[in-house]
């Protein structure tokens, strides 16, 4: 179900030559009950599964979904176990990072609890030569791209502004300026098009980010230049304390229509559906059909960050309803029933997750504090004389304290 009425433009129609892979039923009804209060004060009710593309129900039942099914035909029990393992690892290191923060070892951490399927399902659909441009919460994506356990905590411990060399893992430094990375992804994708390669860029952003001008500009540029970029929006229902109804009065995926960008609205807690949707979008990008917008409807079950107090604004009933829709539980149910998730296997997965979390803790505690004069490093590629002067003056100043007392 590609949410697009713009099939008169051939390039924006569904992929060709893949009979039945992306049927194109009519776009959603033009009206939606979402966000009916004047200022979106109340969070919208959780969308029913009928409104979302879904392959795996919260009860662990594998449903047929003609748009998505062909795109995960290769995901057998073994591949699904891999995705499950990634989700277990992500949940585990996320908990470890929260603990590190509570123990004073990290300054801050933005938990991803509840968003494992959205992050793992999408990131595992990427190729190594693709490039992800994310915000701060996508630690599950970073893990899939190849960030080491220690890489994930550098920024939050305050020893670096970037956890890794972006080109080494095909993922930009996570963006703190909400929405800016969508433009960067679009520019990168434009570069791929100019270079004549079939790599793609993926922009990850939140529901709150969709209100930003940069995100709007990114979609305009991407559509006009037919850039091979995937706009992957994790609608986790919250932008800190603001419910999604304050950002939009209609489903976020519907926004894309106005830019001439087809969209998919999937159950973001369903790792299979997310994988399929991302593959559809990437396939369009690689074929030269331009951008696609994916809204993964999920829920942020933790605080915005470790500094947040969601008890001030979260309705416990809504929270509980989302806990019933856990992304890991449904896979456990499915694979438990099929017999693929044996006790041994579950134990091995858990051990892997423990190992990753342990390495994260050890790596975190061992991170060296950078040298004082490193604050002057890399301002310019060729350091300026003026900054070199500031640096040597400060080094001389510090040297006065070498024996503990100013000389």
């Amino acid at each position, binding site marked *: 179900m590609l949410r697009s009425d713009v099939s008169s433009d051939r390039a924006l129609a569904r992929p060709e030559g893949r009979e039945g892979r992306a049927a194109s039923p009519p776009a959603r009804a033009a009206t939606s009950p979402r966000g009916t209060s004047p200022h979106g004060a109340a969070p919208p009710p959780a969308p029913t599964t009928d409104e979302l593309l879904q392959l795996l129900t919260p009860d662990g039942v594998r449903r047929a979904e003609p748009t998505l099914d062909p795109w995960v035909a290769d995901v057998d029990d073994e591949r699904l176990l891999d995705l499950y393992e990634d989700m277990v690892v992500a949940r585990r290191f996320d908990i470890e990072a929260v603990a590190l923060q509570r123990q004073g070892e990290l300054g801050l951490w933005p938990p991803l609890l509840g968003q494992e399927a959205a992050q793992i399902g999408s990131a595992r659909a990427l190729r190594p030569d693709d*490039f992800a*441009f994310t915000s701060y919460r996508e630690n599950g994506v970073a893990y899939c791209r190849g960030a080491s356990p220690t890489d994930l905590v550098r920024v939050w411990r305050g020893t*670096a*502004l*970037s956890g890794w*060399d*972006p*080109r*080494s893992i095909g993922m*930009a*430094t996570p963006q703190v*300026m909400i929405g*800016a990375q*969508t*433009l*960067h*992804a*679009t*520019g*990168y*994708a*434009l*570069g*791929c098009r*100019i*270079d004549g390669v079939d790599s793609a*860029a993926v922009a990850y952003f939140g529901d709150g980010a969709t209100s930003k*001008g*940069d995100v709007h*500009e*990114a979609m*305009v*540029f991407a559509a*006009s*230049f037919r850039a091979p970029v995937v706009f992957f929006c994790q609608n986790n229902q919250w932008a800190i304390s603001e419910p999604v109804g304050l950002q939009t009065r209609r489903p976020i995926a519907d926004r894309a229509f106005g830019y001439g960008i087809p969209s998919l609205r999937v159950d973001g807690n369903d790792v299979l559906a997310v994988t399929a949707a991302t593959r559809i979008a990437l396939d369009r990008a690689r074929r030269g059909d331009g951008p696609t917008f994916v809204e993964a409807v999920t829920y942020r079950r933790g605080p915005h960050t470790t500094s947040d107090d969601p008890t001030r604004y979260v309705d416990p009933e809504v929270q509980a309803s989302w806990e019933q829709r856990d992304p890991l539980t449904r896979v456990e149910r499915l694979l438990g029933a099929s017999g693929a998730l044996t006790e041994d296997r579950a134990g091995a997965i858990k051990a892997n997750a423990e190992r990753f979390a342990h390495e994260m803790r050890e790596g975190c505690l061992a991170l060296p504090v950078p040298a004082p004069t490193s604050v002057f*490093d*890399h*301002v*310019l*590629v*060729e350091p*300026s*004389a*003026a*900054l070199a002067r500031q640096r040597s003056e400060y080094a001389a100043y510090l040297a006065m304290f070498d024996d503990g007392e100013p000389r």
Partner: protein
Amino acid sequence: MTATTMAAALGSGLRRALEDDPRVVLLGEDIGRLGGVFRVTDGLQRDFGADRVMDTPLAESGILGVAVGLAYRGFRPVCEIQFDGFSYPAVDELVTQVSRLHYRTGGAIRMPITVRIPYGGGIGAVEHHSESPEAYFAHTPGLRVVTCGGPQDAHTMLRQAIACDDPVVFLEPKRRYWLKDEVDEELDGALPLDRARVVVEGSDVTLAAYGPLVVTARDAAIAARDEGVSIEVVDLRSLAPLDLDTLERSVRRTHRLVVAHEAQRSGGLGAEIAAGVTERCFDVLQAPVARVTGFDAPYPPAKVEEHFLPDLDRVLDAVDRVVGRPHALAGWSAAS
């Protein structure tokens, strides 16, 4: 060599950059078929194609943000902002991303982006078309900010800016676009991008200017010479980083400094230059550094812009004050 306008010298600079490096791409509003509103990019899309000379949607943050992504991909983007006043929507990307991605990534990602901005007043334009935003950019670590005073520097410095691995804000003094001079396209031996140049030698007072006021400063030197005052004109060229070494050498000879710019005074480049030179040359200065600048008001309507813009007389008045000439118009006498 035949004389060319500054606009044409910039255009040939862009053409050479596109020829020399296949990773150079141009982005901007109306730069393709139209050749830019000042025709600086005239003919470039025709000759290099729409993938290298791109008309973009009308969105300045978008232009800079997309340039960031292109730089991530290894391109060397040259962005045109149509007018100075429209650089503000791009300031977000410039300040929060372009300027510090190299720093943020510990040197892993370079941002060899050039941002061309026609700037400054004197063309009788409507609001937002006559501004001098250099101080905002010069205050931002990680950006180089340069400007040219004539066609030769326009050509040479633009090519140097594009070849530079740091982001460069390249300010083009739009009222001098039609200034003509001979232009040598040889880059070898050219003065480095971050250096000021003494364009008129003198002994009584140093007059530091840049961009549109370099012409004014040269005129002032000629006028003052007739009155027996020898002005040394320094074209700063690079506003960030500032070439204080060249200024210091000059002021140690002249013992006096006047700084001129069109931009508003408070928090402007003149203040930074005055402080920097005072720190270095306090022992030899014979007068406080004088500033000749735009006023601390928004850029005024065209019919009164001549009052806002420093002109020959205001520059000479400041020179008179600094050298302590009796007929100085302003109240105080510096050398007493």
